[in-house]
């Protein structure tokens, strides 16, 4: 919808009741405006994430209506809090259970790079075991910062980018390569 539609004159003829666009763009528009986050709230950043869902910085007006705690029903995983080695297995397992397409937001300094904890038990950045799409800076990031991250992620989705998954169109298996037609 942001891109110009080919000027076929059809829109002028039929007015506002018709929009012309690519299928990809339409589907990505739907995806970006209904991102259900899976809050992997581990420590202090989880409190700011709860404030992000709370009444003041309302995330549901951006399409994230509910926080789905089940990975099978979520699109984006917001990892909020220090990830230790003991917890890393759990986070990876839950990431693997999310269906495609999926995105990961690394919230806060601890998930981006280990934060202020250079110790024996903290993983220095979750990108060591997860493909991360967005890093949010702050310790903890303000909820406005997280809202901005959500909006940036929405722009990324519109541009058809995802680090960890292959975005297929609805009805198309992402790993399936269609056979070339037999030309006799």
């Amino acid at each position, binding site marked *: 919808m942001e891109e110009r539609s080919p000027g076929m004159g059809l829109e002028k003829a039929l007015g506002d009741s018709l929009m012309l666009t690519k299928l990809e763009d339409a589907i990505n528009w739907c995806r970006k405006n209904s991102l259900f986050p899976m809050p*992997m*709230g*581990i*420590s*202090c950043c*989880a*409190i*700011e994430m*709860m*404030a992000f869902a*709370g*009444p*003041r910085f309302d995330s549901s007006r951006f399409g994230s209506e509910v926080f789905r*705690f089940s990975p099978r029903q979520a699109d984006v995983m917001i990892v909020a*809090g*220090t990830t*230790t080695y*003991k*917890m890393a297995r*759990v*986070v990876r397992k*839950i990431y693997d259970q999310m269906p495609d397409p999926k995105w990961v937001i690394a919230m806060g300094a601890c998930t981006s790079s280990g934060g*202020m*904890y250079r*110790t*024996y*038990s*903290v993983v220095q950045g979750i990108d060591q075991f997860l493909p991360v799409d967005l890093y949010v800076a702050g*310790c*903890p990031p*303000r909820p406005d910062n997280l809202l901005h991250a959500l909006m940036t992620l929405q722009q990324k989705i519109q541009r058809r980018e995802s680090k960890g998954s292959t975005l297929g169109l609805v009805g198309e298996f992402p790993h399936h390569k269609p056979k070339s037609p037999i030309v006799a």
Partner: protein
Amino acid sequence: METATHDIPRKTRILQALEDQNTSVSFVDPLENDVILNMGPQHPATHGVLRLLVRLDGETVTGCVPEVGYLHRGYEKLAENCTYHEFIPHTDRLDYLSPLANNVAYVLAVEKLLGIEAPPRAQYLRTIIAELARISSHLMMMGSIGMDVGALTVWMWTFREREKLYDIFELLVGARFTTSYTRIGGLAHDMTPEAEKMIRAFIDEFPANLEESEKLINKNRIFIERTDGVGVISREEAIDLGVTGPCLRACGVNQDLRRTNPYLVYDRLDFDVAVFDGGDSLARYYVRLQEMKESQKIVIQLLDKIPKGEIHALKPKKVLPRKERVYTRMEELIHDFMIVNFGVDPPVGEIYHAVEASKGELGFYFYSNGDGHPWRMKIRSPSFVNIQALPAMLRNVMISDVVAIIGSLDPVMGEADK
């Protein structure tokens, strides 16, 4: 039917511990098996990353083993490599629902070690922020116990109150959440008249706002039936298990460090200690509700009595000197350099100091060998010990009560796992 001969994986030790535990309930069960349920570290209702392995017979819990350590960040080893000042931001992240209270607790312990005392205005201000932090933490507990039993509105409304508190903290300290406000020997900076006005406005309208949220659940039959008589722990058991804080006061034990071993200015204030009988979840909820009202009374008294004065003690080698003196005088420059790079100058010895944080007795132990870095620092975290009492509370309850009980216990994993 063919059975596959694959290797049965070796039982993990925690599973073995659960199966070895004595079960107090025996059922005559025609099916003769019980389910082991893993309420894993990622769960909507366990507060933070707490893992519970629960053994169920139908819907009744017959045994439970909690597992902690999913947030173990190595604080005590980190403290051995930081100077006493450098550790203050780390204390924010311990009980991350009331960060100011942890700052105050840590700095009081270090000042006890150094043998110095902050000036009166700093002490009054520290008491005010400790009580505001207590209100913030208990509001969160009220919201989450409401959410755990299903009343989501309470959570939304208490979060609205907490946002007002966050605005106060932002004006007073500079940060909403991880504040690091206190310094050894005083505070980082003074309270402006604007901040004082904001605190006064919040505290004056707090009882009315609290009553609004209270009215939703206090007399609600569903809430009372879900929490009354659920998760009972007896008085002797609570003392034996080392439980402190609101959970102990809900068993009828009149123990509050602000009254029995007063610190800061609590001995000059008039407030009651909330003690309820029963030891169940409803009593724990009522204790915290009453404590919020007492904290409100305390802050009003403090705001009227706060003296004028400075907020930094003047002890050259132990307290960071004021910045304007650092830039103009030689001695202060040298002291600033030494304290920032090599740490304050403590004597050799060991101390333990505990305060009444919102979850219980938060204590810091220091073993100092004269160096600017502590040789050993131990944090006595109340949530760690309170979670240990969970198997005793979860005897013969239903699986859905587990969530309400954890909510009433109010553990914070950042503190429990250090």
